[in-house]
């Protein structure tokens, strides 16, 4: 029997016909078989496909709801008051509604990433064809999330279409359950949310591997070049072309046009959010200097626009402020929308000539244009920037107050407190106003870093003080100094790197991976991020970053004037700092964990989600930190990590995601697994203690990270290292010895070497353990034994048959 596979074929009896076969029933299994790979039990799982695994997670890590609203307004029976966990008109109670709301955020986030993926994939196939090979660097395992979830091992762009279609189908199933009168169980909504989170990582992976393969982005390159970052690095003496968004597809045409026309030095090309990151990745696989500068994440959008520096703004999709057009109009900055997701009500000029569009926009006849034709966009945006700069200069457009005006404005403040009440962080604006009247701008400078530039303060001021502009003006000195470096996103971790580092991770001798991801809604300013990363890097953790966090981290320098990107190398090794890339590159972080299971531990990952998640949860000491998480995307990313058994900590604002997944260390029966060698139950340490939770301050956060990197598989060296950091970080930042440190001690060699004797004394005195002081050995006390060959698992079917 002739085997047919997907691809293009010519057949003799069908002259001149080329058939493209896209799908063959059972093809996933067949292909896997051919390559000697067994397909696991759940390729392309449906909504209930991994429900049993979810229930395992949810029985230990129970959902905790903190509603943002006690009411439901989904349907016209309502709105309903669910306060006190009452039922609404459809019979849903508040807890279940919160789980539904959480699911909605997760699938909204997953849809944002996956719709981005669908868009860019469609675009790239249009240029490069379906047969364009996927090339992400020195890896055989191209698409770990995709292969794990769908069983598909994509080789070409075309292969990715089936993957996206699966994600779309599943997301629609999930969206349908948001409808009134669907799921009535909070736990099943939670399982659905976990499903959505998993899909998100597949969607992100498709987006990023497609663009890495086609756009000349660094391919697993630890030496990816450094880009300039910060508002201070933008040279506004040149025409400034500002790009905002997350999808670089159209922007590459602008960059190519500028290159071809020799405009790279004539125009200041600056980017905000992940499009900026991807601009620094575009055509830098040869390690050449990125052609664009990065302004920063969403928190800089309004500040950058209000600076009046941009001469043209181009937006694509995601994390773009809804008021960009309104704000830009006031400063005579034309806005070009380039993506169906954001059109701002602008006329579609996709079929007009560049000259017509430039004329209408530069004359002010139209405030902007929708241009979906990227060739046209590539020409219009730079030419318009060149034309607008002198026009706007001539008009003397400015936004920020003069020094004189600053004094007048700050004096006008009547200390009513309205601004502080509406400020998301309740920042002390009144004090800064008072100080500024006396010429002291330091309080405003501090505010500038804490301020996320949301603009909620402006309209509530009874004295019409443009508060945000005042902050920005008062902080000009520090803004000018906002110049840093960010390593262009390197993409995936390569297979050889996994081979080298896997054992250290699983044994715990590399103390853990800290993935600092997500947005910039920080409780106390961006510097906190630097502080955490610096501390953990010095302690030899692998710090992986992406998106907003990757940007913000580059804004600060140590005493020697170095950014962390300059200070630390970017290999997948202990003490390295890795920027994987933009928001969709987050898939490489989960991908890394999957790769460890596959490459280091030789587990079959194909369509084998449960086993791999179980492996990761029990053996890989990774903790996600989304300190400034604001968006639905961050909720999706975190939830995708959770289904894989990776715990995530969000900042205090994250409590507004409505639910956390928190375990109860005091319930001993929750902290048991099977030993796969014989199916016997074995106790494990209560780590990770949660799958999703919040922390209040970075001082609380750091020991939490260290503690929650502890895993049952740690060998004694690994446990000792992890425990050392946990204790040291608690002492350094919290001022105390943690209460529960002893619970992680199995044997005296688990104890930090330098303090061993001291700690043995405490164990004896405070916890009643028996110590053999001669040999400095623990005789009795620990509830767990050290047994490195134990195979901890939560999944009974993975145990050797003899016992389970």
């Amino acid at each position: 029997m002739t085997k047919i596979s997907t691809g293009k074929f010519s057949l003799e009896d069908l002259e001149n016909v080329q058939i493209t076969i896209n799908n063959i029933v059972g093809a996933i299994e067949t292909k896997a078989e051919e390559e000697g790979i067994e397909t696991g039990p759940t390729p392309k799982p449906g909504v209930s496909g991994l429900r049993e695994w979810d229930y395992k997670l949810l029985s230990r890590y129970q959902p905790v709801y903190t509603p943002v609203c006690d009411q439901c307004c989904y349907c016209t029976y309502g709105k309903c008051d669910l306060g006190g966990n009452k039922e609404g008109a459809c019979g849903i109670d508040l807890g279940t509604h919160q789980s539904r709301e959480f699911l909605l955020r997760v699938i909204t986030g997953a849809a944002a990433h996956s719709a981005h993926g669908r868009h860019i994939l469609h675009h790239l196939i249009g240029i490069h064809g379906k047969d364009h090979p996927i090339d992400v660097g020195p890896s055989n395992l191209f698409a770990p999330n995709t292969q794990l979830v769908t069983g598909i091992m994509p080789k070409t762009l075309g292969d990715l279409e089936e993957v996206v279609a699966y994600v779309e189908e599943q997301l629609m199933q999930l969206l349908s359950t948001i409808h009134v009168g669907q799921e009535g169980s909070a736990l099943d909504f939670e399982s659905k949310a976990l499903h959505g989170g998993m899909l998100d990582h597949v969607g992100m992976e498709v987006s990023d591997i497609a663009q890495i393969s086609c756009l000349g982005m660094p391919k697993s390159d630890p030496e990816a070049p450094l880009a300039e970052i910060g508002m201070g690095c933008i040279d506004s003496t040149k025409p400034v072309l500002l790009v905002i968004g997350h999808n670089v597809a159209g922007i590459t045409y602008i960059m190519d046009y500028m290159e071809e026309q020799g405009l790279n030095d004539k125009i200041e090309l600056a980017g905000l959010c992940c499009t900026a990151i991807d601009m620094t990745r575009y055509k830098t696989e040869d390690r050449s200097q990125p052609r664009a500068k990065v302004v920063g994440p969403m928190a800089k959008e309004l500040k950058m626009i209000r600076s009046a520096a941009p001469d043209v703004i181009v937006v694509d999709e995601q994390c773009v402020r809804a008021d960009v057009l309104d704000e830009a109009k006031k400063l005579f900055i034309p806005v070009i929308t380039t993506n169906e997701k954001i059109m701002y009500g602008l006329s579609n000029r996709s079929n007009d000539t560049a000259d017509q569009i430039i004329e209408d926009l530069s004359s002010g006849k139209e405030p902007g244009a929708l241009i979906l034709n990227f060739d046209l966009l590539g020409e219009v945006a730079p030419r318009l920037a060149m034309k607008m700069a002198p026009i706007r200069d001539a008009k003397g457009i400015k936004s920020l107050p003069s020094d004189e005006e600053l004094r007048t404005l700050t004096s006008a403040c009547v200390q009513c407190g309205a601004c502080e009440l509406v400020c998301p962080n309740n920042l002390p604006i009144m004090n800064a106003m008072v100080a500024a009247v006396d010429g002291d701008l330091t309080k405003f400078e501090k505010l500038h870093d804490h301020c996320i530039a949301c603009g909620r303060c402006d309209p509530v001021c009874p004295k019409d003080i443009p508060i945000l502009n005042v902050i920005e003006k008062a902080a000009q000195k520090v803004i000018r100094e906002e110049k840093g470096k960010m390593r262009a996103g390197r993409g995936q971790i390569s297979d050889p790197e996994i081979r080298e580092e896997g054992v250290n991770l699983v044994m715990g001798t590399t103390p853990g991976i800290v993935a600092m991801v997500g947005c910039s809604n920080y409780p106390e300013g961006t510097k906190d991020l630097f502080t955490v990363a610096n501390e953990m890097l010095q302690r030899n953790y692998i710090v992986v970053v992406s998106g907003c966090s990757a940007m913000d981290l580059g804004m600060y320098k140590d005493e020697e004037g170095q950014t962390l990107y300059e200070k630390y190398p970017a290999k997948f090794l202990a003490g390295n700092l890795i920027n994987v890339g933009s928001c969709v590159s987050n898939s490489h972080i989960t991908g890394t964990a999957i790769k460890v299971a596959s490459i280091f531990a030789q587990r079959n990952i194909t369509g084998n989600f449960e086993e791999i998640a179980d492996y990761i949860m029990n053996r890989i000491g990774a903790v996600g930190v989304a300190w400034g998480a604001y968006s639905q995307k961050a909720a999706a990313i975190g939830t995708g990590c959770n289904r894989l058994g990776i715990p995530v900590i969000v900042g205090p604002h994250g409590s507004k995601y409505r639910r956390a997944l928190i375990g109860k260390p005091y319930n001993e029966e929750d902290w048991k697994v099977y030993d796969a060698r014989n199916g016997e139950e074995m106790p494990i340490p209560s780590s990770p203690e949660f799958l999703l939770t919040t922390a209040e301050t970075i001082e609380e956060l750091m020991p939490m990270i260290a503690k929650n990197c502890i895993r049952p598989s740690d060998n004694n060296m690994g446990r000792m290292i992890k425990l050392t950091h946990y204790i040291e970080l608690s002492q350094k930042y919290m001022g105390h010895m943690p209460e529960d440190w002893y619970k992680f001690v199995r044997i005296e060699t688990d104890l930090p070497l330098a303090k061993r004797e001291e700690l043995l004394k405490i164990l004896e005195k405070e916890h009643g353990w028996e110590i053999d002081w001669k040999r400095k050995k623990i005789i009795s006390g620990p509830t767990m034994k050290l047994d490195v060959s134990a195979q901890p698992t939560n999944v009974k079917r993975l145990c050797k048959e003899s016992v389970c």
Partner: protein
Amino acid sequence: MVDTTKNTMIYTTWGTRNAKPVQPLVAAKLISKAKRPLLVVGADVLESDVLSKAIELGKKGMQIAATGHSMQGFKDQDVNAKYINIHFLATYLGDKTWKGLDGLGPYDLLIFLAHKKYYLNQVLSGLKNFTDIKTLAIDRHYFQNADMSFGNLKPDDHLAALDELISNL
């Protein structure tokens, strides 16, 4: 004497139920009557003069749950303070089998001090909707999701209100 019930201005609402504004004297009575009160102190205590008040409260015999890194402030002070993450605390409080920070059983009144407003309001939202535990906020913001709360206060007025409360315990 400070009127702590005057300004209950809020920026957004969770629903129709809002905290009852209380005077320091009333708050003091509530605390005095409670059998197992727990004072939950956040990390903002480290940035203000409130720390000394928190310590005074602790010295009145109340157990302190020190959230965030507020433990720093209670180091070597003669108070019964234990660190706990506030989200964990709220989780455990929803579990009727939890025995408390000291193993002695459930609390009947939670008193909150020195927290980020948006964060604590979320924690309180969970407690309000899913538990029966009484909550009292004696912070300088009006916490609408508590059962009882001071109104919005200027820093000096807040310190004065705490003094009044303490003197009435």
